[in-house]
């Protein structure tokens, strides 16, 4: 079995991104189910993350965004509450 899910698969990318955004951008649980009027919370968090990291703000999990998400990093949250 592969140690990590293969990269470049849309489903895996979405799951990985969701976990990443929960950890560092205070994305709330069940974002896929909580879609109401307006933009998806996941899209908003992707945009927030892209803006913070100086990436092109697309709201999409493009290759550059995924590449940065996969980089090793500091565990301090970039947004949300500070305890």
């Amino acid at each position: 079995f592969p140690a990590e899910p293969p990269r470049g698969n849309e489903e895996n990318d979405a799951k990985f991104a969701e976990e990443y955004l929960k950890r560092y951008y205070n994305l709330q649980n069940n974002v896929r189910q909580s879609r109401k009027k307006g933009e998806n919370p996941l899209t908003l968090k992707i945009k927030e993350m892209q803006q913070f990291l100086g990436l092109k703000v697309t709201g999409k999990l493009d290759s550059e965004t995924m590449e940065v998400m996969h980089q090793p990093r500091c565990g301090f949250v970039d947004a949300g509450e500070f305890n």
Partner: protein
Amino acid sequence: IFPGNKGWNKKELTYRILNYTPDMLQSEVDYAIQRAFKVWSDVTPLTFTRIYSGVSDIEISFAAQVHNDYYPFDGPHGTLAHAFAPSSGIGGDAHFDEDETWTSGSNGYNLFIVAAHEFGHSLGLFHSSDPSALMYPTYHFTEPSEFRLPEDDVNGIQSLYGARTAPEEPTVPEKPNDPSTPSTCLPNITFDAVTTLRGEIIFFKEKTFWRQISQNSEVEQHLISTFWPTLPNHIQAAYEFQDRDQVLAFKGAKYWVISGYEVTEDSPKSIYDLGFPRTVRKVDAAVYDDNSRKTYFFVNDNYWSYDEQKQSMDSGFPKKIVDRFPGLTKIRAAFQKDGFLYFFDGHHQYEFSSAKRRVTRLLKNNSWIKC
């Protein structure tokens, strides 16, 4: 900085190393931690004193997975470390993920680099959105001996604690021939960047540059700030593109355009506008090659090819330096002269024929300079 947190209200801080990683010698850990604090004490009035018992301001520990702070680590890779903003209790403490492989070199995660970042948090700095800053959230290896605290981090920490006051204020203006200024005649001289400029050769080193106007003239040495007040010190790469009468000078994720002899008003610009991915945090060297009519950018052991006509990066890059430039693996400075490329790495200079695709001569680093 952290919202609502103005940092420590004292200048003399203590730290304690609670435990060690088995990945490194204890003396290596001690040294990495000490150096990481020095990064911040060099530019502020802060002092850091190690204590061995009692509770310090900044408690340093290695731990894996759940470790009693509600921020569990996640196994190898991913999150490497975290630290808390200044306050009592857990405030200021820095935790390093023991599931990582820690090192004093580059094979694994360099403890000095990660600790320097975490101590930024311990002192009150939040993450930076400047990709060349130490406080940018993602890890980027830099050779510790070449590490210099980027400007964004200096500005951040000095906004909290002020600048370090020098023991003595200089009474005369700074001159390029001060005793601390490097001399080109030293046999082991290295350069930060080299470029041609309207027929001259410019060698950048720290806050100065040498200007070799012609082969027969004596070299001139100047402060960068005297010639180009808006250009930073410690330029890391530079190249001339004669068709536009421009020199591009690089530092971190920014570059400055010198048009003729003047720095353009829209400088600095972002290297990402040239087509670099965000994983690139600095450029080691750059050169325009007349033979292939391409600009080459060198980053670690990779290179990119840039098309000046299309003003875009060629596809299929980066590639390994050694694949296009046999005999070379890393390039720290480069320039082109009389159809040859000249590459600098450490104390070596290589003359490279782009047409023959091979190194044709090995030269001394200071061979172009008449002292």
